[in-house]
């Protein structure tokens, strides 16, 4: 842990700040949320890494998606993700957001979450142990150090693609686009 290295702090304070102050959106998306209470309380204590559940998306910069994503939850996930201020990091927890997991042929869960919002890291397993969250956090630190956790920039660049995929499963979205897109571009993006 290089939290105490002064030179690194002076070189890029914002990067170090983001590394050691990851406030997670406390948003229960699936069964994986059952692993979060033990990891933030006395048994595994995530606060020593600077990870803390934030009360609202506006105050957060880490989005843990815990477990399967149904269509209804996807809508809430997209809105929550768009409300979070930049820079923001997403970690998908469990095997369901990776490829559908045990819900792979279900009629109303989605299979690949990274088609709808950008994901910076994955934790495989069903269920992953709480220790896996800490391993993911340390991996996320390395990614932030190397400027590789830039999903929020990807979301802005490829917003047309993401929006088209969102509209493909959810129908017409009731909220306006986060970044400007042309209307007829969406269908082409969904095909390609």
């Amino acid at each position, binding site marked *: 842990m290089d*939290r105490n290295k002064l030179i690194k702090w002076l070189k890029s*304070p*914002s990067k*170090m*700040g*983001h590394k*050691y*102050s990851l*406030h997670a959106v406390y948003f229960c998306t699936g069964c994986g949320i059952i692993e979060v209470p033990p990891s933030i*309380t*006395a048994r595994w*204590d995530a*606060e*020593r890494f*600077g990870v803390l559940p934030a*009360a*609202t998306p*506006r*105050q957060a*910069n880490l989005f843990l998606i815990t477990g399967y994503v149904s269509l209804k939850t996807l809508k809430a996930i997209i809105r929550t993700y768009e409300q979070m*201020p*930049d*820079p923001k990091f997403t970690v998908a927890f469990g095997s369901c957001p990776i490829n559908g997991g045990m819900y792979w042929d279900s009629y109303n869960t989605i299979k690949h979450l990274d088609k709808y919002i950008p994901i910076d890291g994955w934790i495989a397993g069903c269920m992953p142990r709480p220790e896996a969250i800490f391993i993911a956090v340390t991996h996320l630190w390395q990614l932030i150090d190397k400027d590789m956790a830039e999903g929020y920039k990807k979301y802005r660049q490829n917003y047309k693609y993401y929006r088209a995929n969102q509209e493909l499963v959810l129908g017409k979205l009731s909220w306006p686009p986060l970044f400007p897109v042309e209307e007829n571009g969406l269908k082409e993006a969904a095909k390609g």
Partner: protein
Amino acid sequence: MQFIYFIVSPLLALIIGLFFLGLFRKIMARIQWRYGPPITQPIIDIIRLFSQKSVSHGHLFNLGIVLSLTGSLVVLMFIPFGKMHPLSNSGGLLVIIYLMLLAPLGIALSGGEAANPNISIGISRELILALGYEVPLLLIMLAVMTHYHTISIVRIVALQQESGEALFSLPLVLSGIAYILILPAILGIRPFDIVKAPQEISSGPLVEYGGAYLALAEIQHALTLVIGISLFVNLFLGGAKNVLIFFLKILVVFILGLFINAALPRMRIEQAIKYLWRWPTLIAFIGLIIVVLK
């Protein structure tokens, strides 16, 4: 020389406040058998928040939080830190009573601009709670001012250093106890953390705050801790001759408050009002009557 204090006094309060926030999280973690974050964690959080993009909800949203922070900084000018008191010769306690209301009012104005239902609940709770503790606080300050025949806080500190701390001398002991009873409400810690209840109303007035706004709100919270405790130390524990002893005194009071925070659950707003207007007000009123009749 007096001029430097205008810069040093708020800066010192800011450092002490951030240290208190770090200590708060560390000691709470140790009480709950956790390892806890490093003591610099609030500073790391604030650096992170300042580097994060933030969303504004209008001009009043920006100005309100600045008003709140300014209110806290101005109050600090009137409160003596040991021998440091840039403005405490003028105005005294009456000015402090008025200026202490600026901080909740600024947050209320700022939050009102962002139309979130949680904010309205949080603001109404904040103002009701302020109403709750202002009544006993006014009675306590009236008792202190009557007993020492002065409104100047510097004079009160000097008189206490001559004749012993007010908390341990006879006529003011009841007022001191009443102040201890309302101190958690002034600081907004656990039995009275109704305003920013994160699990109930998702941090109340701060719901729409992100990035730099939340950082300013955090700094304001740190200053509030210092103001509430140092007012108590000046009025009832006799202030201090130098800054170090003053710091030790507010540290002791803060850690005692922390244990209360760790031991008690959160009250509902009507329970808080019922409590604040019954026991502290009653004790403060009896204390005032004793002081007046003496």
